[in-house]
């Protein structure tokens, strides 16, 4: 069988290279029974359309971020909350745990292969040092969707912009900073335009990425092919998590190389950030409960699996 695989990550991105390797590994281990045509960089479906594209059969497999479809994945959205992530491996493991435990209805129209999630999303600023929560008040900070809720809860003024625009805005001083994972410093060259990294790990968020497959295509596979896909996926989800961490490491080196400096938070100050971010989580529980799900149970489970993962 020939399967098409659409990924929004640009082909030069490590996450795209890994997906391509996944495809090759599947071809190898299935002995050529499953072949994969790989379309990186959103050439087949763009980030926002990847999930729907798989459901509709535009591509057979798709990778993108859950956050692009706000409201569509209420259970899985818990993983993106600012729960204080410290690594991509941890976040990835939490995402897969949460899926395995809840098997949420929201993903029932596809076959889920695996999830992965990027490293901790923290605060970067230009010119202004943010050492305590008060320093952040009223600063204009680039953040979208989830991170925008976090930024607002912490007292910053969120500005929703695309990454290329954010680079420009920061360079020209239109905004004062941004919430993003360390790897973005290199990946989107943000280190060129920011000066400080506030180590806001106690309130760090993540973004969950899915790899899903068209259900009919999955059902049509042989048992052996299914087994190969499941196996390779299980191995690769770990690799993606590790790759996020090594990208974070590269991003950190690049940030230092470009003259960036770190601002650690004391334990007490960190607790203040964590508490300030709490309303985002409470709001999630409220909204999910309104949809007829047990929001509290979802958050509790997510926090528990985070604790055991890191």
């Amino acid at each position, binding site marked *: 069988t020939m399967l*098409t695989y659409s990924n929004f990550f*640009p*082909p*030069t991105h490590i996450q795209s290279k890994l997906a391509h390797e996944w495809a090759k590994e599947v071809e190898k281990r299935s002995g050529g029974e499953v072949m994969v*045509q790989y*379309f*990186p*960089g*959103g*050439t*087949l*479906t*763009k980030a*926002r*359309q990847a999930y*729907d*594209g798989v459901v*509709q*059969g*535009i591509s057979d497999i798709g990778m993108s971020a859950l956050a692009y479809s706000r409201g569509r994945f209420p259970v899985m959205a818990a993983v993106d909350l600012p729960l204080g992530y410290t690594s991509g491996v941890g976040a990835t493991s939490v995402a897969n745990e949460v899926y395995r435990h809840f098997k949420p209805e929201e993903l029932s129209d596809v076959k889920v292969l695996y999830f992965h999630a990027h490293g901790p999303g923290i605060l970067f600023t230009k010119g202004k040092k943010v050492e305590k929560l008060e320093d952040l008040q009223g600063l204009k900070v680039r953040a979208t969707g989830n991170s925008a809720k976090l930024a607002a809860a912490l007292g910053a003024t969120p500005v929703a*912009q*695309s*990454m*290329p*625009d954010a*680079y*420009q*805005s920061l*360079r*020209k*001083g*239109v905004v004062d900073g941004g919430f993003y994972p360390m790897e973005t410093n*290199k*990946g*989107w*060259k943000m280190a*060129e335009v920011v000066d400080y990294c506030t180590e806001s790990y106690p309130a760090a968020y993540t973004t969950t990425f899915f790899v899903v497959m068209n259900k009919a295509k999955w059902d049509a596979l042989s048992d052996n092919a299914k087994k190969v896909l499941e196996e390779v996926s299980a191995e690769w989800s770990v690799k993606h998590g590790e790759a996020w961490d090594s990208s974070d490491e590269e991003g950190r080196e690049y940030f230092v190389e470009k003259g960036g400096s770190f601002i650690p938070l004391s334990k007490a100050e960190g607790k203040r950030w964590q508490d300030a971010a709490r309303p985002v989580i409470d709001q999630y529980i409220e909204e999910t409960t309104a949809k007829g799900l047990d929001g509290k149970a979802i958050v509790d489970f997510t926090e528990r699996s985070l604790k055991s993962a890191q």
Partner: protein
Amino acid sequence: MMLTGAVGFGLLISPQAALSLLPREIYSTFANYDLSTIPLFILMGQVAFHAGISKRLYETAYHFLGHIRGGLAMATVSACTAFGAVCGSSPATAATMSSVGIPEMKRYGYADSLAAGAVASGGGLGMIMPPSVVLIVYGVLTGQSIGKLFVAGIIPAVILTALFIVAIAGVCMRNPDAGPCGERYDWPARLRSLGGLSDTIIVFALVIGGMFKGLFTPTEAASIGVAGVLGVSVIRRRISWSGFVQSLQETLRTSCMVMMLIAGAVVFGKFLAVTRIPFDMAGQVAGLDLPGWAVMTAILGIYFLGGCFMDSLALVMLTVPVFFPVVLGLGYDPIWFGVVIVLVTEMGVITPPVGINVYVVYGMTRKIAPTIALESIFKGILPFLLAIILGIAVLFVLPQAVLWLPGLMD
């Protein structure tokens, strides 16, 4: 184009998939923030046009350059470069400058092919002059500094503007009727005509100054420009309510057509992607055992051919990842390659069959100069194509033209 794309996609993947693809691609093109600047830049040009700003601008230019053959076309391509410093997209530059430039050039008796060819090709200067959408995408794909890429684009844009001016002079030498000479004005008259520039200078200072001071991003400059032009015109009582309404309507008509065309190109691009032609071609060239310059020429040839059929952004997305390692292996500079790619893909936007700028200019001229035929625009771009090829040759021989400015940044 949209139909071919959708039917082809349906045959290759499945009819069901094609039917799902169509609304999704079209909607996401319509609701794209970066593309939303196109209507705004068109509106800015329309308001400027209805307020007579463009007319005064050209009167001034005519005082200075009118006695030279083709002088107004030369002024137009220079204006395109200046406008390109505000606008990141080449169809948007072409659209704005055609609503401003074509009526004036027609008024002074310029040939259709020269007038329309100048704005369609000049639009490409808007992409080479920073800010530039394609350079941003290239920087992200290859991990190059976007700031450096932008700075690197400045000198090539100026070189190309000069070459365009030479091309216009060449056209007028072969055919003196294409850009007729006007009368020569004395210096006092020329200086007096500078007064006509005041509105433009105010708006320009507002937009450029605001961007450099960091008050807004290049993408937002479109809206600020609209507000600026409108503000100046209202204060000076140069635009009427009906003029404003007319510019809104004209903008809607044109942007609607432009967006439909872009959506069509996007759908067609998806079809091309699933045929895997771009991937295969790239793979083959990478495997050739030839000297460096020959491989580079072959790569640029592919970009040129691809640009004939595809949107430049989609083309860059599809092929840069394959060619980039090859180019690095041959010892070429990544910043240089990025700028050269933009130049080559800007040839694509003016060549048939899919020449977005040509269609944009054609769409714009339907109302202001309905006699201009699509054929004569395609004819008119020929000298400019030669100028771009010459420009690429210059960058080959003199890579310092690209690399000198960004080198200063280290």
